[in-house]
């Protein structure tokens, strides 16, 4: 079990207890805690509704092509942008702080 911090779109902080042995990713743990993360495509890096910013300086796995490609079609993309669904929870992520990126709804 690790601890991660999620700052939602209203600026509210949520402390999540996240299991590392259940093959879960950041998008899924956010949904499990009923945070406003849609995860429309189900975790295929094909929708960007789990777009988030990594605020802590953790050494995260490098982006794969699919994630980079999807971020091309997302908005509000910054240098610390990631797709939550591509970040599998592991023990090195203990203490991770992320912030949910704005939604692009008209």
């Amino acid at each position, binding site marked *: 079990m690790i601890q991660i911090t999620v700052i939602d779109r209203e600026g509210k902080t949520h402390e999540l207890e996240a299991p590392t042995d259940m093959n879960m990713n950041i998008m899924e743990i956010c949904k499990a805690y009923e945070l406003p993360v849609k995860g429309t495509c189900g975790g*295929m890096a094909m929708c960007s509704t789990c777009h988030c910013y990594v605020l802590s300086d953790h050494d995260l796995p490098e982006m794969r*092509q699919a994630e980079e490609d999807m971020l091309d079609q997302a908005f509000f993309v910054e240098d610390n942008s990631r797709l939550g669904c591509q970040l599998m929870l592991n023990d090195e992520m203990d203490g991770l702080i992320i912030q949910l990126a704005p939604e692009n709804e008209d």
Partner: protein
Amino acid sequence: MIKTDILIIGAGPVGLFTVFEAGLLKLKCHLVDALPQVGGQLTEIYPKKPIYDIPGYPAVNAGELVDNLMKQIEPFQPTFTLGERAEVIERLEDNSFLLTTSRGTKINAPVIAVAAGLGAFEPRKPPIDNIERFEDDKGVAYFVRDPEVYRDKKVVIAGGGDSALDWTIFLANIAKEVTLVHRRAEFRGALDSVEKVHQLDMEGRIKMITDAQVVGLEGQDHLKEVTIKHKNLGTFAKEADEFIPLFGLTPKLGPLENWGLEIERGALKVNTYDYSTNVPGIYAIGDINTYPGKLKLILCGFHEATLMCQSAFKYIYPDKKLSFKYTTVMGEQGILATASKVAS
């Protein structure tokens, strides 16, 4: 006006399979989809991805599943209205529905099956405050309808995929000036196109600005300039007559929100007895519906479509008796004979 028995909104896997189950009951189907091709998310988002939980297929590519579904429903001769969004429905005097699409096509049916997945696919609009002010021929378009519009104009294209690359190449010969803006130096489009765009840039026939994004639009009655924010160079203005943001498509619930259907968390509430909505004659199947225990799986959508068709038959013909036959009992001859009655 098109007349049919079941009007299916959405030509994804579940909408397509509905044609088969309806056909076995001699009900004719017409499908409407906002995308120009059938298959829904499978074709638009992940055609090359293998799916592992379709019963009987250890693995099947999404695109191949769509091809097979089309083959399976072919005998029943479904008809299609593609590239048009289902917009407005009205209830007629005979209690049937009349649907009008975004391009004015009218379809009449006693039953509507909403199999719209996550909604109708629409272009992703960049979050620029006043962007809507420049839509409708005032300088912003999310896809290219007629390239001639851009003749001798100063055009800015944004995006890094195939459509951004392809239109940059194409419009280089038509427009006065083409600028391609992309958030990073790498492009995800076809290698040929990427090379071609780099070559055009070196020859000075287009201008490529990478590590940048368009963040603002200026102009009175028509677009005059765009504001570009560059990672290292900061923010600067660029003269532009036309701006074409190409960031792919995303599904939106859209007009069906106004059809009087009960909605819960962006999905249509149904009765699991027959997947009927709160409006008699309108059903919802596949990813678009919700009920206790709902799973968004293609295989669940197939099940929902099957039960829905039985109910639709009873709704259309309350006095007719419905006898259920296995396809193994019907055999190919039986299915084709049934299909010929649907098609006629």
